C-alpha cells in the first residue's frame, strides 16, 4: 500500500526542487513560485503525519501555512512590482544594488 514513506519522499522531492529553483532561477517570480512549492511540500508532510498519528493537529497547521503562504505571496509580489518600477527588471542577476 501507500505508506508514510511515499508521502515523505514526495515532500522531500518537492522541497529539493523548490530549493534548486530558488538558487538557480533568474526570474524572481519563478523564485517566488519555488518558495510556494517549498511551503506546499511542507503541507504535504504535515498532512501525511497527521493521518499516520491519527490527530488532526497537522491538518490544522497546514491550513495556517496556506494562509501564511498567500499573504507572503501578496507581499513578495508587491516588492517585485516596486522594484520593477525603479529598475525595470525582474532578473535576480541584475538586482545587485547592495553589492560592495
Amino acid at each position: 500500500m501507500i505508506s508514510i514513506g511515499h508521502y515523505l519522499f514526495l515532500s522531500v522531492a518537492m522541497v529539493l526542487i523548490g530549493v534548486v529553483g530558488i538558487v538557480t532561477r533568474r526570474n524572481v517570480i519563478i523564485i517566488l513560485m519555488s518558495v510556494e512549492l517549498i511551503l506546499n511540500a511542507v503541507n504535504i508532510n504535515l498532512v501525511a503525519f497527521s493521518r499516520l498519528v491519527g490527530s488532526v493537529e497537522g491538518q490544522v497547521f497546514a491550513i495556517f501555512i496556506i494562509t501564511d503562504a498567500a499573504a507572503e505571496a501578496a507581499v513578495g509580489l508587491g516588492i517585485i512590482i516596486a522594484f520593477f518600477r525603479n529598475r525595470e527588471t525582474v532578473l535576480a542577476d541584475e538586482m545587485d544594488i547592495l553589492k560592495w
Partner: protein
Amino acid sequence: MPSEYFLAHIWLIPLFPLLGAALMLLIGRRLPNSGVNVICVGSVFLAMIYAFGAVIQLIMRPVAQRVAEVVLFDWVPAGAMHTTAGHLANFNAQWGMLLDPLSAVMLCVVTGVGFLIHVYSTGYMGHEGGYYRFFGYLNLFMFSMLTLVLGNNLLLLFVGWEGVGLCSYLLIGFYFLRKSASDAGKKAFIVNRIGDAGFILGLFLLVGTLGTLRFTEIGPAIEAGGFAVGSGLMTAIAFLLFVGATGKSAQIPLYVWLPDAMEGPTPVSALIHAATMVTAGVYMVTRMNAVFQLAPLAMAVMATIGAVTAIFAGSMALVQNDIKRVLAYSTVSQLGYMFLALGVGAFTAGIFHLMTHAFFKALLFLGSGSVIHAMSGEQDMRKMGALWSKIPVTARTFLVATIAISGIPPLAGFVSKDAILGAAFNARPLLWVVGFITAGMTAFYMFRLVNMTFFGESRVPHDVEHHIHESPASMTVPLMILALLSIVGGWIGWPESLGGSDHFARFLDPVIAKHAEVVAAVPEKGGFGADYALMTASVLVALFGIWLARRLYLQHPDVPERIAERWSGVYRLLYNKYYVDQIYDAMFVNRTKDLATALGAFDRGVINGLGVDGVGWLTRTVSQVSMVWDSWIVDGLVNLAARIAWILSIPVRMLQTGRVGSYALFIVLGVMVGLAYYLRVSGITLHSILP
C-alpha cells in the same frame, strides 16, 4: 671713689667715643656745630680722663702687679681643641680689656693726642660741610683704636684693626665728591686688606699652635710648648703677622696708600696717619714679642724692611713740593725706624719712638694744616715763603717740631731716634749705616720744608697774601701743647749714658718676654764709649742736613733747580716716586681688571650661552624629537591597524554581491551544514527513521 675705680672701668674708655659716633649717626644732622663739639670732643675728653686715671692707678701698683684685666663677656667660647703639638687647649676669645705698661703707653698717646686733635678740628673744620659726619667718623675711629689698644686678645685687637681701617677709608674719602679723594680711600682700604690677609693667616696658625689668642696666656703657652729659637712655626707666624703690620703701618711693599691718604682733611692725616693708626702695627708686633723673639729670621727681615723703607721714603721726601706729601713720606720713613728697632730686638726703643713721633708728627701735620688754613687752601710750597712773621705761633711751634724730628738734643726726637740707632749699631751695623744716612736726609728735607714755607722770599700770590692770618685759639693751643711735649717728651726715657735713668724702658720691661736662649745670646754691654760716638755722629749728620738745607733754600735758592736739571734722571725718578704706583698698576691692578673682564666674558659666553640658551635649545630639540615620534610612529601604528582591518575585509567583502540569488544559495548552504551537524550529533540515521 675706691682706689681702683679707673682700673675697674677701663672698659668704658672705648665706649665714650662709640656713644659719640652713635649719636652723630642718629641725630647729628640736626645739631649745630656747638652741639657736635660738646658730644664728640666731650666724649674723647672723658675717655682721656678715664685713661689717665687708669694709668696713674696702674703705676701706683707695685711693678709685679701692673696687669689689670676686665672681661665684659665671653665672645667666642669655642671650647676644647687640640693644638698641632697635641696639647689640649680651651679656646675662649673674650670681649675684655687689658691694661699693662704697653697698652698704658698707647692709651695715653691715643687719648691725649686724639683729644688735642679733636679740639683742633673744631677750629679747622668749623666752616666745612658735613661737620657732624666728620666728628662721627673721628669718634668711631677713636672707639676702634681704643679697642685695638685695650683688647685682651688678638681677635679683639683685630676687630679694632679692621675698624680703624674702615674709618681711615671713610675719612680719607671725606670729600668723596672729589674723585681723587674717593680713589685714595679705596686704595687705602684695599692695600690694607692685603696685609690683613696675612694677619688672619697668622692668627689661624697661632690658634692652631698655641690654642689661645689671649695675651696673658700666650707667654705661658709658648714656654710650655718648648719651641726652640728659630722654630719653623714661630717664624711662619711672625712673618704672617708682620705682613699685616706692613699693610697697616705702611712699610715696603704696602706703603703706597699713605701718600695718597693726604687727600683727607689735615686733622685726619695728623691723627690717623701719624699718631695712631699707622702705629698699630708697631704695637701689635711689640705685643707679640714673645713670638718674634723666637723667630730671628723674621726679625732680620723686619729690620731690613724697616731700614730700607726709611731710606726709600726719605729719598722721595727730598723732592716733593706739596707740604703734606713731604710729611707723609716722612711718616713712612719714621715708621721704618720703628720697625728697624723692633727687628733688632729693641722693642722699648720702638715704642718710645712711636710716642715721641706721635707728638712731633701730629704737631707737624696740624701746623701744616694751620699754614694751609692761612694760605686759603694752598698746599704747594713753591707758592709759600716768608710766613714767619705773619703766622708766628704756627711758625714757632712748627720749628720746634722740625728740630725734634731732626734729632737735635735735648728734644724728644733725639732720645728716641738715638736709642734705635744705638741698638741697630750693636746688632746689625749695616742697617745702622742706612739709618744714619736717613737721619741726615730727614733733617735736610724737614728744614727744606721749613725754609721754603716760613723763610726766604715770599712767593705767595698777591690775592692769597691779603688773607694770611694766624689760626684761632682752638687750633693754636693744641699746637703749643704738642710743642711742649715734643721738647720734654723724650726726657722720660733719657738714656743712662747721659746721666738719666731711662724710666721708660724700665716701665715697659715687664712686657718684653725673656726667653732664656735669647737673653743668653745678647752680648755683654761694654762702656758708654760707643754710645757717645754714635750720638755725636747722629747730631753731626743732622746739623749737616740743616746746613745743606739752609744753603740750598735760603742762601742760594736758584741752586736746587740747577741740580734738578743736571741730575734730571734721578730727579724724575724721585719725583715720580720710583714709578711704584705705575708698576703696581701694571702688575696687579690691571691684571685684576683683566681677570674680571675674562670672567665676565666667561659669564656671558659660557654660562649664558651654554647654560641658559643651551637649555632652551635642548628643550626645543627634545620637543622636535617628540613631535617626530608622535607623527610618525604613533600615528603610523594607528594607521597600520586600520590598514590591517581593510586587508582582512577584502575577501569578506566579496560576499556582498548584491545578487539575491547568491544570498539564497548561502542560506541553503547554511541550512544544509546545520542540518548535517545536527543529524550527526543527535545520532539519527536514515535507518532509524524509515520503517
